[in-house]
């Protein structure tokens, strides 16, 4: 992402220079940005702080306005989170999800974007086809997949005797891979979009030079395209990680509550169970804090790894 501010520094125009040093050259900007700043503090910064606070206290829901004692408990909530098999399982599930989803997303979207970039015919139709799952509600799409991958669904009908037993969504080994496949399909359009933009920055001359040097189409793809779109790859991998950390609708609806037997739970789903259903928001907040830290660390490592070599 471009983070630099490219606004040129023009000579100061403010009539009150002292005020200008205090508030900036155009203090009206503070007024313009204030609603958004207040929104970010109220809906992001404050809740982030509150999450950390809740996670270090014995927190429970009480009637509004009631004065209750919520003692500081140190790392107790974190210890109970990390020693909880259900929570650990949800993290392992997300790891499985990422192992399938990330490589599949990167490879498929880069290949499809490269092909789309070269296709002249029917580009509009093809682009719409690949973007459409991205703009559609997960709930609506899960409804179709429930029937496609159901016990007597079309997929099993096609496979006949090869159909897995137990069926996809109730099979402990297959539930998470099906979710990973579903999310890859649903989100692939956005990665294709990012790669299509990045491909415009790969100079065509490089491909020509490679082909003059006798490189094959595949060789030119590996040696010119892949390194050329690295910034987009960083973004695609980070976005896939974030999507993985976010999973809720799919385990809730597609595998009927993270089933079978917790094989497809996700951390956000466990947060929902513990925080809202079982009334232990302190434990759930601790899971949230761990996830936020994990997402930030993984994003940072991804960026470093993919940009360094």
């Amino acid at each position, binding site marked *: *992402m*471009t*983070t630099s501010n490219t*606004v040129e520094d023009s000579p100061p125009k403010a009539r009150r220079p002292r005020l200008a040093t205090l508030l*900036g050259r155009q*203090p*009206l*900007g*503070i007024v*313009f*940005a204030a609603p958004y*700043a207040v*929104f970010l503090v109220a*809906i992001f*910064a404050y809740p982030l702080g509150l999450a950390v606070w*809740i996670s270090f206290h014995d927190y429970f829901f009480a009637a*509004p306005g009631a004065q209750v004692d919520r003692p500081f408990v140190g790392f107790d909530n974190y210890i109970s989170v990390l020693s909880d098999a259900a929570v650990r399982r949800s993290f392992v599930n997300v790891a499985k999800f990422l192992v399938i989803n990330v490589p599949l997303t990167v490879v498929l979207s880069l290949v*499809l974007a490269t092909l*789309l*970039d*070269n296709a*002249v015919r*029917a580009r*509009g*139709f*093809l682009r719409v*086809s*690949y973007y*459409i*799952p*991205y*703009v559609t*509600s*997960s709930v*609506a*799409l899960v*409804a*179709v997949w429930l029937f496609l991958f*159901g016990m007597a669904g*079309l997929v099993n*009908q096609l496979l006949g005797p090869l159909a897995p037993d137990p069926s996809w969504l109730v099979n402990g080994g297959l539930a998470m891979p099906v979710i990973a496949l579903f999310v890859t*399909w649903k989100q692939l359009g956005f990665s294709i*979009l990012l790669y*299509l*933009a990045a*491909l*415009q*920055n790969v100079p065509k001359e490089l491909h020509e030079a490679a082909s003059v040097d006798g490189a094959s189409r595949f060789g030119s793809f590996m040696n010119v395209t892949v390194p050329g779109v690295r*910034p987009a790859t960083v*973004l695609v991998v980070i976005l896939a990680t*974030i999507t993985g*950390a976010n999973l809720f609708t799919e385990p*809730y*609806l597609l595998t009927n509550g993270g089933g079978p037997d917790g094989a497809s739970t996700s951390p956000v789903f466990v*947060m929902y169970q513990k*925080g809202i259903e079982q009334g232990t*928001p302190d434990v759930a907040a601790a899971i*949230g804090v761990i996830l*936020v830290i994990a*997402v930030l660390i993984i994003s940072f490592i991804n960026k470093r790894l993919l940009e360094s070599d």
Partner: protein
Amino acid sequence: MSTADSQSTDVPVTETDSPSARKGIGHWLGLAALFLGALVFLFPFYYMVVGSLQAKPDTSLRGAFPTSGFTLDNYSQINDRVDLARSLVNSGIFTGGVILGTVVFGILAGYALARLHFRGRDALFAMMLLVLIVPFQLLIIPIYVMIVRTYGLADSYLGIILPFAINSTAVFVFRQFFLQLPEELFDAARLDGASEVRILWSVALPLVKPALLTAILLTFIGPWNEFLWPFLVTKDTGLQPLAVTLANYISNVAGRATNPQGAILAGAVVLAAPAVALFVAFQRHFTASNLGSGVKG
């Protein structure tokens, strides 16, 4: 929908010097792969519509391509169980509220972040980037505590809208677009004595109209498709958006309908149709360059 248009906004294809111009076997194989992939991508949508029109579920391969037995019964079935009109209105209010907040406050913030020098701008920009990385879902517990427990906004439109009121991705897109406008434009307007409000309204905004459309489209799909938050914050079915009422129908009462598969798919069609229709209508604006060239750095 015109392919020529999407090319001009997205990619200038130079037919003479691109390798594809040679139209080798590889080119046709690539095109075949693209169409095959598109077929796989579109099939679930086709299956959704066909299933919603079938009197009896037929999950065999032949059942996917029926020639008779079409009916709209499933739509009245789902409408008996889930108040479709009410749910659609709720989805509309949720989405409309978010779009209104994003357009009004998001444009102001995007303009300020791109074009105005004021104290705290860099801090605000850094916080915006952080919000784009840390997903809302991870803060669901404290936000639930705040909105439902502290402010008592459960089962209210305000409670549903509030956490989504200004879409940060849209603010980012607005900022990128205002940044791309030439600085001389602003200098000239300021020399003429135009106020910042007037510059934004009469100079900058008309120039970024296409971006506005893209950002609104992008903002639309968020709340329209959102499930987790409205699901948590509403117990009153009269206030639930369609994504929530349909999900509840899928997980609770599907067993009681005579053709649950048809009814669920009919609900899915109603939920998917507005977003898909809007997207198809405006798809040529939906390009990465219109989304603020976020990856070109």
